[in-house]
């Protein structure tokens, strides 16, 4: 195993192993964006007239959530880029086994010099946790509270707690088939389980709901059919989906169901614009909203909105309204689940937060 000592060597290995996840051109951009210079970890670079050097953490502890692997994989890749030792606390057995499997597969397929920097754990090991300079955690509010309580003052705690995302249709009466498919992609990717997955599609009041719903339903079914690996639908999942459908029927809401009522997706028009959480797994709510109602409708999730995917053009007034609700990312519909490597997750420059800096002021 040849020694790897520089960021560029690690970057090369990572990009070669996972060119789609971590494209070669994107990684230096990430380093430049968050550290100021791709070589800031390896040599002195100039910043504001002085020489500075980034210092990587010796060890990073990644606490993975059970809903999907991609966040954990990205976090781990950042740790590897820094050359830190990485301890990965896998999702517990009761969580979705696919997530656990996907993370392990990623680790196993790393080039040997990078794999040597990773250790996976099934249970949280207090010693590893205490020995880490940085804790990166994904999960529920309760999980974040509990982990924060265990963290020392000189450990950096980067918490990615629960969040929701939304789609906004600027001109729903003229939604193209292509845009509808883009929305369906956002809904169905990762079985809607991530914080970047939309839980509702918002649109301006006055739009024609029935043709719009028909169009979206067609797109959802088309995308569902194209999914190579259909997500599992165990009892716990079908129960939630069935409940959402039955509640909607009883409330008199318009419901679009797939052919033969399979459990791949469900589209529900809820005339109440107020946000309510979807049971996920392809259940998406269509909510029309009057001008000026946005703040009230999204009040329950103020500060918890990650991404707004936009089909069409978002007016500056609406953009400001979303901003005031704490939204941290806008993107085109269809791109919600594939943020660029330089994306600041929850508005945070995670890679930048992991490192500390050494300043070398000029001698007198």
């Amino acid at each position, binding site marked *: 195993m040849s020694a790897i000592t520089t960021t560029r060597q690690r970057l090369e290995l990572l990009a070669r192993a996972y060119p789609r996840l971590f494209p070669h051109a994107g990684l230096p951009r990430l380093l430049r964006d968050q550290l100021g210079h791709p070589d800031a970890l390896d040599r002195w670079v100039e910043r504001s007239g002085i020489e500075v050097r980034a210092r990587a953490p010796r060890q990073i502890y990644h606490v993975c959530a059970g809903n999907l692997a991609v966040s954990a994989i990205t976090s781990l890749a950042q740790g590897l880029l820094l050359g830190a030792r990485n301890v990965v606390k896998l999702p517990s057995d009761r969580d979705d086994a696919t997530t656990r499997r996907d993370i392990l597969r990623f680790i196993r397929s790393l080039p040997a010099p990078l794999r040597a920097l990773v250790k996976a754990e099934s249970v949280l090991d207090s010693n590893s946790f205490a020995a880490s300079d940085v804790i990166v955690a994904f999960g529920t509010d309760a999980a974040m509270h509990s982990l924060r309580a265990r963290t020392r003052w000189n450990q950096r705690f980067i918490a990615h707690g*629960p969040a929701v995302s939304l789609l906004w249709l600027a001109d729903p009466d003229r939604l193209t088939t292509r845009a509808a498919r883009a929305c369906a992609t956002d809904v169905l990717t990762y079985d809607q389980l991530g914080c970047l997955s939309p839980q509702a599609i918002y649109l301006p009041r006055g739009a024609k709901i029935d043709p719009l719903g028909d169009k979206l339903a067609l797109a959802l079914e088309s995308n569902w059919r194209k999914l190579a690996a259909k997500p599992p639908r165990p009892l716990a999942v079908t129960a939630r989906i069935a409940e959402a459908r039955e509640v909607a029927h009883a409330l008199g809401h318009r419901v679009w169901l797939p052919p033969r009522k399979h459990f791949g997706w469900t589209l529900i028009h809820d005339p109440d614009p107020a946000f309510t959480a979807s049971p996920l797994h392809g259940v998406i709510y269509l909510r029309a909203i009057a001008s000026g109602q946005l703040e009230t409708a999204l009040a329950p999730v103020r500060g918890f909105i990650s991404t707004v995917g936009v089909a069409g053009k978002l007016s500056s007034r609406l953009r400001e309204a979303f901003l005031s609700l704490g939204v941290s990312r806008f993107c085109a519909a269809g791109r919600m689940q594939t943020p660029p490597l330089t994306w600041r997750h929850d508005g945070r420059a995670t890679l930048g937060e992991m490192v500390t800096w050494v300043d070398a002021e000029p001698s007198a």
Partner: protein
Amino acid sequence: MSVRDFALPAHRLAWAKLLLAPLDDARFDALARELFAWQFSRVLPFRRLCQAHGVTPRTLTNFRDIPAMPQQVFKREKLFAHGARRPGAIYETSGTTTGRPGRQHLLAPDLYKFVALAGAQRAGLLDGRAELHFLTPSPQAAPHSSLSAMFGFWRGTFWVKHDGFDFTGLRERLTAAILDDQPIGLAGAAFAFVHLLEDWDSYAPLRLPRGSWVLETGGFKGRSREIPKAELYGNIARVLGVPDRAIWNEYGMSELSSQAYARGPHGRHAVPPWARVLVVDPKTNREVRVGQRGLVRWIDLANVDSVLAVQTLDLAERTAGGFRLSGRLPRTEARGCSLSADDLMPAEDRP
């Protein structure tokens, strides 16, 4: 079409008497379809749900095909078959911080009282020998609690006062009963027993007289630490000196009128003849086979004022003669960083 008017006290009484008469499947089916037709015509959300499934009184051929109302709808809509009439009782689930508890509206609590007494008697609990004590507030103190109401029908002493459990007073009373060889029936939610066991941890165990029983209604929901059922029953048996088989579980909910009872930590629930529990696969909307797990669906002929078919998120295994409850479906599974209904709503259970 039903000629019965469930708003009339005489008709309600007649219905109650029908429920107590022998009910084979055919008779149960006939009564269920009659009640279904009545509620279909009067409860709009129920009608909508049924129409979405293409089920109407004319097309329904078997009570098993009655679409079941999700419990969640009791939080969103008033499910009341008597229009603008004033309900005589409203029972609520918790969920108060959302301002949206589930509500069961009854024209009068007469049928609830009738089946709450008859069901417990059939199970063998109310034989008139045991002196009853309840770890809940009284019906006067908690007028919207269906559990307090049921215990009120049973008659006994309530040991939750305005400042909490009066375990000292209860212990004194139980000690006196032991001296008098007076059998005791002690009933409350599971979390109340956890508190009782913790409170009495430093005292010597009691030995309740022969014929005594304990009844817990399940559910912790953040009101105490959760402990497995076998452990809870073991501790109750040890601290109160009753055998395992004298510890019962009552399975009911505010949205229903009837209850099921199971005996011992591994007991199967028995449903009274005027109700049926179907263990259903949500994917097919049909009953699962014996030995398989599914969701509990109640068809309750005593639930005349709202809807007779209620779909729960309780998990059960279908057994040859009934079902074995195995807990409640967690509200969310493996959501990780995705904000869930749990994050937006408090836990729910029966007050």
